[in-house]
């Protein structure tokens, strides 16, 4: 990372160009150098590898590849680069997943500009780019996760994951599930990945079969 006082080199990845441009202008006005902009997760990984910025601001919900997967790939390829998630999602699961995948911070888009820039500058002092509220939320979520691991697989699923599994057991595709739950397809895929890991199964068919067999869900009749 750049030495304190030197201009921070930043890559901004967000699929909403108006928002992205606003962030770029804030960063530039604060004396940081925006070396690149990405509109999806694939582009974010490519640009990160090519440009080797000091810092990447990464949205979670993006097309082609979501921010969490992009984060994992960037951290694997470029462990020295700091990645801060910048998102609307205050979802516990996203927060924990981001931190476990190596994010150096997690900032919400409803933060004010002063707080946002202060958090980024804090990275140069070795601080996490996170508000105290988010930090408290993270600690609580990690404590809950620790309790969950002691339980059986059936107790590991969140209510959202159970809801999704019901729809999978009813034969709905990811796209149909996304529409039904008013979430993005990428979010459905993210939840499915977690479900497969928690149930220790290989694919959605096995997950659905396991769920019905174990009485975890009663399949919902397809429309």
């Amino acid at each position, binding site marked *: 990372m750049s030495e304190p006082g030197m201009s921070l080199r930043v890559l901004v990845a967000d699929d909403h160009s108006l*928002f992205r441009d*606003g962030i*770029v*202008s804030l960063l530039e006005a604060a004396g940081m150098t925006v070396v690149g902009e990405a509109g999806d997760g694939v582009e974010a990984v490519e640009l990160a590898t090519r440009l080797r910025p000091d810092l990447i601001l990464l949205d979670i919900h993006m097309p082609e590849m979501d921010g969490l997967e992009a984060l994992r790939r960037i951290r694997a390829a470029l462990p020295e680069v700091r990645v801060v998630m910048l998102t609307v999602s205050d979802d516990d699961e996203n927060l924990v997943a981001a931190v476990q995948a190596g994010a150096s911070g997690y900032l919400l888009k409803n933060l004010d500009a002063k707080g946002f820039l202060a958090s980024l500058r804090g990275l140069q002092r070795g601080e996490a780019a996170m508000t105290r509220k988010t930090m408290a939320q993270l600690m609580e979520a990690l404590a809950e996760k620790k309790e969950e691991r002691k339980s059986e697989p059936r107790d590991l699923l969140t209510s959202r994951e159970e809801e999704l599994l019901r729809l999978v057991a009813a034969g709905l595709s990811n796209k149909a599930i996304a529409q039904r739950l008013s979430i993005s397809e990428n979010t459905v895929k993210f939840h499915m990945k977690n479900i497969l890991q928690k149930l220790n199964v290989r694919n959605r068919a096995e997950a659905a079969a396991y769920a019905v067999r174990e009485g975890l869900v009663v399949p919902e009749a397809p429309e």
Partner: protein
Amino acid sequence: MSLRVAVLAQHSLFAEGLATRLREYKRVFEVFSIDATVVEDAIRRLLEAEPTIVIVDANDAGLLKEIPVTRLLNLLPGARVIQIDADSDRVQVFFSEQRYAPATNDLVSMMHDIAAV
């Protein structure tokens, strides 16, 4: 003469970023960033600024609860309110017009005028 633009935000990185970007258009816009955390202060500053355009973030839920678009239009009758949803890149423009219509004929005439626009 530059357009007076007020960017009103309670919790919006987007709005503050946009205001910073708009300031680059110095010859076109005179930009006022108004922090709406304390609503009555924000309204006072808004009235002092006399903007032609007010920009708000459609996702700034706290702001829009305290100062909905209708209230902005009532406070600033001649202004345009631009509500931007950065999540979908959609922009809505609101404006209101106040006219005097003491009789039904006046109202009917006004309705014809509006339909003709």
